[in-house]
């Protein structure tokens, strides 16, 4: 049963609170790296909420929050360059899957991703006891030398598939949500199956405000954004 998972991020609702970042770190066993490593640009969070400044009329500076998870592109630049097929396009979920134990760490996919959403395990990040009690059993803890990225919480998608399968029904819209979409207070992050025409995601795809990051590069990302609006008048 084929599905095409897609994520819609409504930048008009996104307040930049970072709840998605914390939820993703909790769900996907992401290590925390400390100040010196963060200073070297080695944060390990899979989704980053980027705050851009922009000068607008009345020379007022506005902040724009761009939550950037993995785009799960249809024509993913990272898939073709990996020499060992550690990252490839999954057939029945149409997500860009990452096979950790095949990765040998050439980091070419990290370089080739225009969105720079791939992070690399520079060290064997040890979690001080008993913080490791919290590790999620549904997915691996990556060793050093392996690339990792947002996987649309593939373990939650699998769990959703299994429950739907055992109850003999298709997956309901909104039943399978990655950790960020589930916890986003204003509901800016929506997730769903593009093949299902009634799903919220398909509807939002038709919204005129729809745009994709770096669409000119032709990667056809599955993570789509809705433009931030500006009320008329002052």
């Amino acid at each position, binding site marked *: 049963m084929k599905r095409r998972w897609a994520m819609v991020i409504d930048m008009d609702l996104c*307040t930049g*609170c*970072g709840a998605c970042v914390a939820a993703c770190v909790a769900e996907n066993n992401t290590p925390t790296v400390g*100040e010196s490593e963060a200073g070297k640009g080695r944060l390990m969070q899979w989704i980053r909420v980027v705050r851009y400044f*922009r000068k607008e009329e009345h020379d007022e500076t506005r902040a724009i929050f761009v939550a950037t998870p993995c785009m799960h592109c249809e024509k993913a630049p990272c898939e073709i360059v990996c020499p060992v097929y550690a990252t490839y396009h999954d057939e029945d979920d149409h997500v860009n899957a990452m096979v950790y134990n095949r990765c040998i760490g050439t980091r070419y996919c990290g370089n080739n991703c225009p969105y720079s959403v791939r992070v690399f395990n520079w060290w064997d990040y040890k979690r001080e006891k008993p913080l490791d009690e919290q590790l999620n*059993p549904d997915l691996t803890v990556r060793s050093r030398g392996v690339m990792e990225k947002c996987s649309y919480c593939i373990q939650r998608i699998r769990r959703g598939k299994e429950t739907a399968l055992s109850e003999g029904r298709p997956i309901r819209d909104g039943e399978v949500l990655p950790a960020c979409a589930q916890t986003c207070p204003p509901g800016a992050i929506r997730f769903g199956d593009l093949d299902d025409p009634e799903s919220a995601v398909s509807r939002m795809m038709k919204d005129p405000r729809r745009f994709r990051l770096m669409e000119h590069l032709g990667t056809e990302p599955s993570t789509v954004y809705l433009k931030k609006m500006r009320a008329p008048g*002052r």
Partner: protein
Amino acid sequence: MLNRRGFLKIGGATAFAALFGGCERLPKTLVPFVIPPENYALGESLWYASVCRQCPAGCGIVVRNSEGRAKKIEGNPLHPVNRGKLCARGQAGLQALYHPERLGKPLKLDGPRGSGKFREIPWEEALRLLMTGLSSVRAEAPTALLMLTDPMRGHRNLVSARFMKAFGSPHRVAWDPFGQDAHLSANEAVYGVRDLPEHDLAGTRYLLSFSGDFLETGVSPVHFGHAYGRMRAARPTVRGKFVHFGPRLSMTAASADAFLPVAPGTEGYAALGIAHVMVREKLTPAAAAAGRLWNAGLKEFTPEAAGKKTGAPAADIEAVAREFGSNQPGLAMAGDAAASCTNGVFNLSAVGLLNLLAGNVGKPGGISFPDRLAAFASFGAEAKLLLPAAESGYPALRDAVERMGKGAFRMALLSGATNPAFTLPPSLKFEEALLKVPTIVSFASFLDETTSLSDLVLPTPTYLEEWGDDIAPAGHGGEAITLGQPVVAPFRDTRSMPDVLIAAAKELGGPAAAALPWGSFRECLDKAYAGMGIDLEESHKNGGIFSGKADAPRRAPKEGSPALPKAAEAAFAGDPARYPLVLHVYPSSALSDGRGANLPWLQELPDPIATAVWRNWVEVGPKTAAALGLSDGDGVTVSSPFGSLQAFVFLHPAIAEGVAAMPLGQGHSRYGKYAADRGGNPYALLPASVESATKAPARHSTRVSLVKTRMKGALVRTVHPEGQWLYENIL
């Protein structure tokens, strides 16, 4: 010629080749390990509903427990406050549960008083020490017992209150650095109700916020975050407009359609400027009341006067006022920065006046005051204890500090995350006063600045391991009681504070034993809710008792007679010559008042605006920085008349000129490895001055000076300072 050995060798080789080549089934497809094959079943896990105590908002949570370990916290979909959503601090609760520095055994002081050196002792010895202290104080002078905690509610508060009353000591102080005293007294002056209102953000069409960072901290960030989402997108044809007045472009202001920078403490004048235009343009439904107000002095607060006072352009104030007047139902809210000035009540009353003039009190999309007491009639006189106490408790705390100074107390019971030794201004000399109390007992899960001053520390479970109930301060419009339950078996050998108090009361005997007649705190809860005629098991499964229907918005008594609040100027300590900039301190979105500083996930969460991690910073506007010769990332010494610290400059392009802003939360000295040396503590810069009417702490009441100094290291920011302006590159 082939000899026997050669034959055997060749025979063996061919056999092996056959084995290897022939019979291995050709792999049909390569299945990656990320998506394990179908027959690989995922482990089953249980979900327990409980209440989040990472901040006083009281959201409902469900926690995934797999093999007896808590794995993930998510919002409880049934809970009216957060409707299945949760903020970053809520998610980080797991790190508090499994924190390496959690206290496992009771600690007894093992060095000079206040040194923070302890040694572990068994529970029996600890309780014996507690009991000898309590019984001796009870015998000689019961009033010499002080209980200093953070604001408690629900039956936890009831047990503590009964214990203290039965013990015979009136001194029970609840300290909350972000108390809502100014809100309460302003609401009383404007609406006639001394309570926190319900803001129907989702239903409003025009939202005016005066320094109210309700999306990041404030009363209930997740509730307002969710409501903000519904205000923008829930209604097909309506998209609520949001205008923010405030000293700096905060995370909340960034989501506004228009941000108008105003000098700190002048929000009231902006509000009156708007009121002036609304009355002049006859955009207020109650014309008569508006006329009376006009003559009572509103006519002087022209937009131009307000513009000069606040720094916001007069034309903008006029335009916003006209839009606010014509887009009803509108809603005006004020936040912590407006409330914690010396003229806090004036600012909030002026903002409240806008709601009255717009006639949105008791209407959907406006403001209303639910009768919270009605739901707890069955608890009789003590129902008040269950409700969230919004006061900051600052006057009572100052009084208690004076008494401690004079040695009036013989024993102090400390508890809670608000950590007064860290969050109080230094001029109060809280530490010296506390150390004059002969025996200090702390109930805590971590050693922080206040707990390390004590003589005996009794480890308490985190909120994920104890029973409890909670009433959220805002967001449920009616009676919604959240029930907390342990989601994992207690992780350390700990006892919750109510259990200890109940055991102590039983041992003290007499009226104390009578006041707390239960075997344990859980029994107290079960008895309290047994009478409510509900299936407690089912409620625990749902995470609370939710009536499901928020009662209709209620009108306020003083609606008819809007009175002009007495204008007052915000006073700032320090002469402007030596201290040119006004200090604006705000709770950081990840660490709030400082309680989250020992959680690595929160320390590494980039701040929404400054995108800095693991350190605090001082924000200055471009013109001010140029005037002081500072550039982005320089090290400066921030000094106020009361203290000084070092921090890195973050060049904030959208901040009122002449303002230096700093996030609170960093600067801990004794709060564990993750919170140590993360920058200076801004609380140490603050004066002990108070809000004129309510005597609440006035944080925005000092001036600072910035002097460039050489500092080691740099501020780690996740967004490149040059690249942050090139948003177009990713389109």
